[in-house]
């Protein structure tokens, strides 16, 4: 299978790629099945890190750094705060219950098999393109063709900022009254 997918193991980069892929897959599995929600969250750290590494292998250096900055520095910290603010500080082993794990596993396995079948059987129109710097191109696309979505997403971010602050603040006042 490995040879079929064209991974040359004599290349050091292939081993690094395999390491990142293994980290991503194993930690994603850990997020899904861990009994401890804190372990799930810190596995998510490894998943995000591994995905950033995969972006580097796809020559998407700008998005890899953005992934680190936004997912690890932002979203993961938010999730950790969410865990720590919604649980008692004392219990270190915070359980993470599941419902219908067998049914969920069947559905997830089905989805994975269909996606894997499609991605292995489809005749992809692959283009052999030399790697190019992406930051300039992304900037041009944002300032040109995608200017309206770009502005809309900035308005969305502002709305999310105000909305999140409002949601958190209102309950505080209610508590104090």
């Amino acid at each position, binding site marked *: 299978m490995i040879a079929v*997918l*064209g991974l040359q193991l004599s290349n050091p*980069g*292939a081993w690094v*790629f395999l390491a990142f892929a293994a980290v*991503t*897959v194993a930690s*994603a599995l850990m*997020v*899904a099945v861990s009994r401890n*929600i804190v372990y799930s969250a810190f596995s*998510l750290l490894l*998943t*995000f890190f591994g995905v950033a590494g*995969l972006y580097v*292998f*796809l020559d*998407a250096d700008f*998005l890899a750094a953005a*992934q680190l900055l*936004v*997912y690890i520095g932002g979203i993961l910290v*938010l*999730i950790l*705060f*969410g*865990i720590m*603010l*919604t649980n008692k500080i004392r219990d270190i082993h915070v359980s*993470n*219950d*599941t419902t*219908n794990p067998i*049914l*969920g*596993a069947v559905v*997830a396995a089905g989805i*994975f098999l269909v*996606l894997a079948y499609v*991605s*292995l059987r489809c005749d992809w*129109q*692959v*283009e052999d*393109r030399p790697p190019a710097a*992406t930051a300039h*191109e*992304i900037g*041009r*696309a*944002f300032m040109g063709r*995608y200017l309206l979505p770009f502005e809309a997403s900035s308005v969305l971010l502002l709305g*999310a900022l105000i*909305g*999140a*602050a*409002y*949601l958190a603040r209102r*309950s505080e006042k209610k*508590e104090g009254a």
Partner: protein
Amino acid sequence: MIASLEWFLLIGAFLFATGVYTILTRKNAVSVLMGVELVLNAANINLIAFSRFIKPVSSIGPQSVALPMEPVAASGIYGAPWIQGQVFAAFVIVLAAAEAAVALGIILGIYRGLGDVNVDETVRLKG
């Protein structure tokens, strides 16, 4: 290239499946949010992988036509055609940040109101 497109698609599919499993089976709302992030990451891997490997064309098939993209072909003021997948991924990252902030605000609100973040028990609006 070190790894072929299929590798990335398989990893993306696996992340998607684990994300779906997490969303379906977890009771804790924060865990469900983690599943959503996994799904978004899976989508991003696919977007960037297609952006890296696939020729920008209008349809797959023998008579596929290159899209009339931009007035400047390679890398004009609008950006090269092959960058679109990465631009989409950047939008997904932005949306994920906004979504996580609002979701955490809602989860904290639920916790303050109900004292729990179990998604099975937030049924107050049920008729």
